């Protein structure tokens, strides 16, 4: 760690700020795709005519009078609506003539409601309508295609997911914070090992600085997660395994801070905190990466929920998600170097 000139180089700091601004502005202002928030009634009997009111989000039903709607059972069974009337921009009244026979094996079926107009493209409510008293079999009312090609609207728009709604933007902060925390902890670990090999006090300070920023990111990760949980799961805190394992990880690293502040001899403090931080990182591996995989979790990627790489992280989200990780790592490194320089100055004034 002789050459520290990179610390004084402003280019990567400016880059970090710029990328973060891009994520903040772009991630917050890009609109969501049109979607359907709820429909009433959400159940009907087969063989009846049913009129449902469909509440759209970010839709332009009224200004586009060419609205179309379908009830979709699977990819080759579609039921076009009999009439579609727009009440206002976000309200659509759809009437379906439900046939008696449904091509399913069960006594009830779930149909996806799809609305379409040229400006919004398609908006849908997956499994929105519950149809009861279903007879099994084919009915001529079912069509195998939309009958026209649906055109997706142009421009960048984030996917609309029911329950998530606008909070889908939290992906750029909550998920990116955790990933960059892991990276910062790895840098901290690298410097801790380096200290034990070289006994260079600078490595100790680097390790402590990176670990402190990582703890800060972890706390932010818990906070952003908590806000997200309030919206999607309805509570600030749950018994979810990942959530609690991360909280435990924070406790372990909080103990690391206590250990550092309880020892005054520089050399001894460096030695003990390096040992403890290596030990605690090792325990982090079962805590964060292994145990949550053994149990069900409400988080994406567990218990059958989709995860990163699935259809949930689509290309428009990727446009901001990956830059956000880079920006947070750069900003974290910047904060860590400031802490490092602060500590170095403090030591200098103490020895002078």
């Amino acid at each position, binding site marked *: 760690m002789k050459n520290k000139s990179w610390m004084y180089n402003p280019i990567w700091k400016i880059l970090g700020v710029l990328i973060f601004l891009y994520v903040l502005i772009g991630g917050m202002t890009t609109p969501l795709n049109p979607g359907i928030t709820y429909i009433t009634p959400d159940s009907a009997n087969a063989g009846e005519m049913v009129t449902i009111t469909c509440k759209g989000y970010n839709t332009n039903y009224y200004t586009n009078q060419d609205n179309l709607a379908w009830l979709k059972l699977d990819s080759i069974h579609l039921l076009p609506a009999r009439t579609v009337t727009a009440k206002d921009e976000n309200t659509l009244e759809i009437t379906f003539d439900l046939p008696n026979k449904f091509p399913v094996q069960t006594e009830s079926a779930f149909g996806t409601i799809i609305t379409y107009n040229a400006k919004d493209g398609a908006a849908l409510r997956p499994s929105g309508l519950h149809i009861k008293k279903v007879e099994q079999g084919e009915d001529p009312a079912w069509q195998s295609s939309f009958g026209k090609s649906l055109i997706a609207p142009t421009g960048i728009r984030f996917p609309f997911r029911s329950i998530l709604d606008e909070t889908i933007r939290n992906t750029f902060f909550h998920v990116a914070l955790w990933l960059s925390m892991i990276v910062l902890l790895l840098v901290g670990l690298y410097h801790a090992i380096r200290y034990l090999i070289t006994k260079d006090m600078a490595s100790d300070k680097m390790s402590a600085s990176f670990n402190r920023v990582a703890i800060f990111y972890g706390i932010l990760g818990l906070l952003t997660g908590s806000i997200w949980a309030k919206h999607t799961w309805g509570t600030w805190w749950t018994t979810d395994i990942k959530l609690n394992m991360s909280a*435990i990880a924070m406790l372990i690293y909080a103990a690391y801070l206590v250990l550092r502040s309880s020892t005054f001899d520089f050399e001894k403090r460096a030695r003990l905190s390096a040992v403890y931080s290596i030990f605690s990182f090792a325990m982090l591996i079962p805590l964060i990466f292994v145990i949550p995989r053994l149990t069900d979790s409400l988080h994406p990627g567990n218990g059958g929920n989709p995860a990163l790489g699935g259809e949930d992280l689509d290309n428009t989200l990727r446009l901001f998600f990956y830059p956000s990780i880079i920006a947070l790592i750069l900003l974290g490194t910047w904060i860590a170097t400031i802490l490092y320089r602060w500590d170095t100055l403090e030591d200098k004034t103490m020895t002078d």
Partner: protein
Amino acid sequence: MGRILTLLNKELTVELRRKHTLAGIFLFVAIIVYILYKSFNRMVGMEWNVMIWIVLLFAGINAIAKSFTQESNDTKIYYYNLVSPSEYIIAKLIYNFIYLLIIFCVVYMGFSFFMGNPVKEFSLFAKAAVLGVFGIATVMTLISAVSGESEGGGALLMSILALPLTIPIILLLIKIGASALHLIQDSSVGQDLWMLGGIDLLLLGLTFILFNEVWKN
């Protein structure tokens, strides 16, 4: 090997010479078990399973905390000149492991005596206990060394450093314990045992490497 045996012998001699600490630990266990018995009055199933591991954890903290803190700096330097750190840590680990295992047996007997023994699958329970006790003893031995070295150390630092690190082990123990008590049907219990063993190995390896650093003066 001879030196390790000598060290073990010395630990045992010191332990037996200070009968009050030994008696203290067992009295502590007896008191905790009795408090739990009188608080719950009838403890069954999951409470029994959770409480036995928690009691093991706290008894372990009390028993192993003194492992390094009881020695004066002069004695440490004396050992430092006589034996290599790896011999020293192996002796400490073996000693603490056996010590904690005995404590666990006492806790188990106390629980069985007062609150009955709901264990249905003893071999599974015993495997989990041995692996868990080993993991907890390893964490606490190293943390005891770390907190013994630090100046502001003592029991408080020992507990805040060691307790969060033992949480993964405790959670796995509770999960395996629940299977052993037939509270849950778990087909992947073998996987959990391997996991516990894996954590133990990881901890053992790290303790072995890192103790050299703690021991240097």
